[in-house]
């Protein structure tokens, strides 16, 4: 066989190669390369965005944790504050109550004392009055008794007159 035939291109073969190659480019461009590369690129984008979203979520959770910690700390300090305030208030109330109670007790005591004094004075006055009335009564009775006799009456008047003349 002629070796030159190896390096002599056949026209028919070139013609069919052009047809087949062009057909392949047209068909594969529409039905293979475009869908494959679009799918791969879309997938890449999806993966990237998913990774980004995961990163963001992690950051958010971290922030959330920090927030939680902060809130917890704040709550703790607030609770301490509240407890302290409550304790103070309690102490105050107790002290106040104590003071008030002692004041009241004193007042009551004083009032009772003065009342007792008043009652005493009243009783003494009444007693005095009663003694006076009693002594007048007694004196009346004694006088009545002594002045039952006519002679006694005259003596008594005389004595009084005598006393008056002297004055």
């Amino acid at each position, binding site marked *: 066989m002629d070796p030159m035939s190896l390096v*002599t291109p056949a026209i*028919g073969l070139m013609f069919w190669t052009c047809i087949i190659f062009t057909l392949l480019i047209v068909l594969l461009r529409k039905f293979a*390369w475009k869908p494959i590369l679009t*799918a*791969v690129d879309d997938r890449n984008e999806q993966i990237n965005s998913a990774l980004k979203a995961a990163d963001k979520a992690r950051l958010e959770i971290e922030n959330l944790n920090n927030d939680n910690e902060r809130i917890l700390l704040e709550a703790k300090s607030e609770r301490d504050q509240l407890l302290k305030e409550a304790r103070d208030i309690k102490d105050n109330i107790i002290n106040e109550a104590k003071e008030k109670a002692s004041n009241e007790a004193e007042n009551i005591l004083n009032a009772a004392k003065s009342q007792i004094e008043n009652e005493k004075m009243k009783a003494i006055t009444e007693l005095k009055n009663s003694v006076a009335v009693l002594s007048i009564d007694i004196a009346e009775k004694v006088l009545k008794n002594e002045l039952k006799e006519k002679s006694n009456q005259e003596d008594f008047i005389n004595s009084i007159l005598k006393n008056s003349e002297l004055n």
Partner: protein
Amino acid sequence: MLSALNIYLFLRHILAYILKMSNTRLKPLFTLLFLIGIIFHLKAESPSTSNNSDELYNPVPAIMHHISDSHEWHLWGEGEGSVSIPLPVILYTAGSLDIFMSSAFHHGKSNVKIEDREYSLDSHGHVFETSGLHPIDFSITKNVASMFLALIVMLLLFVLTGLKSKRNFGAPTGLASFIEPLVLFVRDDIIKPNIGSNYKKYLPYLLTLFFFILINNLLGLLPGAANVTGNIAITLVLSFITLIVTNISGNKSYWSHIFKPPGVPLALMPIMIPIEIVGIFTKPFALMIRLFANISAGHIIILSLISLIFMAQSGLGNAGAFGVAPVSVLFVLFMYLIEVLVAFLQAYIFTLLTSLFIGLATVEHH
């Protein structure tokens, strides 16, 4: 060196996939293919003139027959006992189109007469017109049929992957998990780095180019297959498309480098400009020769190594054949693996250089 690493990673990906497949469901298939391959080669190579034992077996006709195009798809056997698939012959002679099956020639023993035109096959398997007219041969030859087969294989592989990828929003599975990384490798490691930012409009062409060469290289390695990418007409068309695409994409600075090379003294212009113009054509010309020569050479080496057995038989008798056969088969096996590597490598290089030429023609100088 980066591209060498890329090739390595790329081949490793393919090898890993093949190993995975061969370990599971495809193992019997691979073994069968390999056995069929050896049997095919041996049967196809069996010399027809074994009665003439004085003469040393000449392997050249059989080898040339294997790497040349043909009007029929020869499977096995010689002469009367040969089995081949007839293919349509399409001839355009003096304004009329004649179509008939190649089996009408009866392997060159009879002529085909249509109206007043009579066609015959010469000893090289070429069709000629007996009255001296020059028919233009548009036949579906073995190579054309093989390319149609490649077309079907490619459409099946890539359109199915496309359909699968379009529907699937998760990680790729099955066929897509094999094809997608290949497509991405071609795009991200061959096309993108060499063309630059405006690579998108060249993607369909370059991806098709890569896989057209790859699939045809691999189909050519199957037993009984055609030598498509080892045919100069096909590599000529592919490199001609490279030439056209490169020069159509060429920007101002590309053309000014050719017709007004910067930093060149005026006296040298008459030498430099023709050199630059020749350079436009030598680059795709080298592509054409490289692919054609690599694939043809691979086929020739494998066929020669097998022919060694028959040469030994014709020279030393059956004992010689049995002595040479194991060594020969081992070498063939080794070459076959090398050829698988070359199939990928040549597709890679052709696409890489085409991308590089386009990149050089479109690069913006500031």
